[in-house]
């Protein structure tokens, strides 16, 4: 009997092990294989459809054409960097020559005047979106917390938020542009007007989801926690620090994720419309150029825009894990 049970139990264990291995394999395949298959099918479908779409600029670009353009964009970037280096060298020489002739001359180094490469545009877009988003966060989170704590403030501000939240960036942009050019006047500006324009448009559009989510997060804190705070007679600041913030972090981050998604989408549209430097301008310029490579280059930009959007979202998630370490 004993041996029988042991055999049975061995079998069970064996089966269990097998099942576990199978589970791991299916899990792995879910993690790697399925997305891989999905992407492969997408690429095939893309190639097939692209081949059958004939535009006045030639065939719609397939994956191969896009990869080719990535290579082109990279080599253009390298070439431009070399030109920039030569530019700085010529400038040094010219400055030296002039100082030799004209001792009063205060030589200065000017930035490279050549074109912005694709890589530069990506960096510009990232800087703009992060500045606009941070500005929005600086406004939205304190305001949201305050609103969550005070019912009357919430009642007062809520209608305004609800009305402004669905406004498209394209509607804000002309207003922002005019106001910025009227107010931001300086003979030697630190940052360019176009940067301020894009940044403020991003802020205006991405501030709302953060306010709303923060306010909801704060107002729905467990009443037990609030009672604890009351019993301990925590000061307002400590109350916010020790009770409100930790408890509402998940909601704040949900708002931030939503906002950053909006910010990234808005930025591309704003850059396109206002001709502000960045990926949006890159897309618009290529559309205007109407060369046979234009569509492939735009598609390359689309892929990059999507990828960066995804990375930004992951970035916020990672930040959330890092901030709420205690959970």
């Amino acid at each position, binding site marked *: 009997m004993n041996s029988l049970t042991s055999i049975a139990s061995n079998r069970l264990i064996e089966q269990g092990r097998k099942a576990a291995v199978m589970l791991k394999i299916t899990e792995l395949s879910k993690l790697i294989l399925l997305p891989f298959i999905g992407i492969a099918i997408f690429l095939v479908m893309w190639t097939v459809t692209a081949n059958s779409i004939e535009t006045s600029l030639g065939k719609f670009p397939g994956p191969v054409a896009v990869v080719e353009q990535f290579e082109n964009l990279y080599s253009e970037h390298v070439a431009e960097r*070399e030109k920039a280096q030569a530019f700085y060298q010529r400038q040094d020489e010219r400055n030296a*020559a002039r100082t030799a002739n004209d001792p009063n001359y205060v030589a200065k180094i000017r930035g490279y005047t050549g074109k912005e490469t694709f890589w530069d545009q990506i960096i510009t877009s990232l800087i703009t979106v992060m500045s606009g988003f941070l500005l929005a966060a600086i406004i939205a989170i304190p305001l949201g917390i305050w609103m969550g704590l005070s019912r009357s403030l919430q009642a007062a501000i809520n209608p305004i938020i609800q009305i402004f939240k669905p406004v498209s960036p394209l509607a804000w942009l002309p207003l922002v542009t005019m106001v910025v050019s009227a107010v931001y006047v300086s003979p030697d500006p630190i940052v360019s007007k176009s940067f301020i324009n894009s940044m403020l448009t991003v802020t205006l559009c991405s501030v709302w989801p953060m306010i709303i989510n923060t306010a909801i997060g704060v107002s729905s804190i467990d009443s037990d926690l609030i009672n604890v705070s009351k019993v301990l007679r925590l000061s307002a600041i400590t109350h916010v620090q020790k009770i409100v913030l930790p408890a509402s972090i998940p909601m704040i981050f949900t708002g931030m994720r939503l906002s950053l998604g909006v910010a990234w989408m808005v930025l591309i549209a704003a850059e396109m419309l206002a001709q502000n430097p960045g990926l949006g301008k890159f897309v618009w310029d*290529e559309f205007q*150029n*109407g*060369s046979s490579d234009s569509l492939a280059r735009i598609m390359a930009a689309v892929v990059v825009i999507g990828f960066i959007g995804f990375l930004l979202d992951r970035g916020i998630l990672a930040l959330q894990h890092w901030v709420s370490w205690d959970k």
Partner: protein
Amino acid sequence: MNWTATLAQQIIRPLLLGMSIGASICISPALAEVGYPEKEELKFGFIKLTDMAPIAIAYEKGYFEEEGLYVSIEAQANWKVLLDGVIDGRLDGAHMLAGQPIAATIGYGTKAHIITPFSMDLNGNAITVSNDVWAKMKPHIAKQADGFPVHPIKADSLKPVVDEFKAAGKPFNMGMVFPVSTHNYELRYWLAAGGIHPGFYAPHKGDTSGQIDAQALLSVTPPPQMPSTLEAGTINGYCVGEPWNQQAVFKGIGVPVVTDYEIWKDNPEKVFGITAEFAEKYPNTTIRLTRALIRAAKWLDDNNNGNRPEAVKILSQSNYVGADYEVIANSMTGTFEYEKGDKRAVPDFNVFFRHNATYPYYSDAIWYLTQMRRWGQIEQDQSDEWYKDVAAKVYRPDIYAKAAQSLIDDKLIPATAFPDFSKETGFKAPQTHFIDNLTYDGNQPNAYINSFVIGLKQGDKL
């Protein structure tokens, strides 16, 4: 200069430095004459058209840098944005339609005192119609022995098509790039010469559509969007600069029927516009940028257009015009393709320097003013003197002459390449070579205005 970057810089640099100091001592007399630029960092705007070439070439060939100017060049969305940029100081100067500085100075549209020390090119535009319209025009056009139509094609052959549209109750729409653009006046000139009324403006009544009494309705479309607007069927034809006519041929969506060279041989096209304030505040900078542009224009026409392929390569970069090499080359290298396969030699389709193309003639400015009066943009009669005064306010051959003289003194360009500045009056001899065979004398604008069959004449008021 690319090779310098790759070579061992530490060794080369001091060497080059010594050389450049030596060089600057050699040319110091000229520097003393013109003086260092007061403003060194400049931003210029342009519209994606091949005739922006002098700016791109002055940059790429280092002519701006040799003047001590650090110029960045930025494409603009449309002519209005560009003009506003120059007026509000976002741009220091720009590639402009010849009519823009004039209109701005007399206050048609945005009022601002814009001047031009440099005329950028001659010719370079064409009128394109959609395939449908072309098919309907063709039976009315005489054919050559090889089966292709006889050029120049007059709007007489378009008239039956416009009448057909009218009979069917459909509007005949055409695109041009800006109300005071060369293209607007050329398109109007061509249509009116063929008996098609392009419509009047009446700004004093608040009507700036330019469609009063019109048989063909003209509206504004930015140059790079012309082909796609034609393709969408919103317009039936357009007048625009290159490469957007050749683009229509390549895309197979339309047929260029006439170039502006055939409408008015060697007509002045774009100019380089800056504000009067800029020229006053930064006189040396103004002369220096004019010098660089003159050198670039000369380079473009040197060796009998021999540098053009290189220029086309530069222009096809995405930050300049950005269209395909072949499309830009089609018109820039002295040919022009009308119907697909009908490629003809038009060596003067784009003129940047020869025929004194860069000299800002008063008579050119006055021609634009006469057309503004003809179509009602200038709502009332003005004296011949008024026309000349306005021209002298906007066109500044004095600045051009200073820049050219310094180039002659520096032995960079021979004096023979320029008009004789001691005798030049700024008025071209009466010009013929118009598609309707009229003669234009810049000294008598009112007489010229009265000579048109279609158009406002002296004493007319809408």
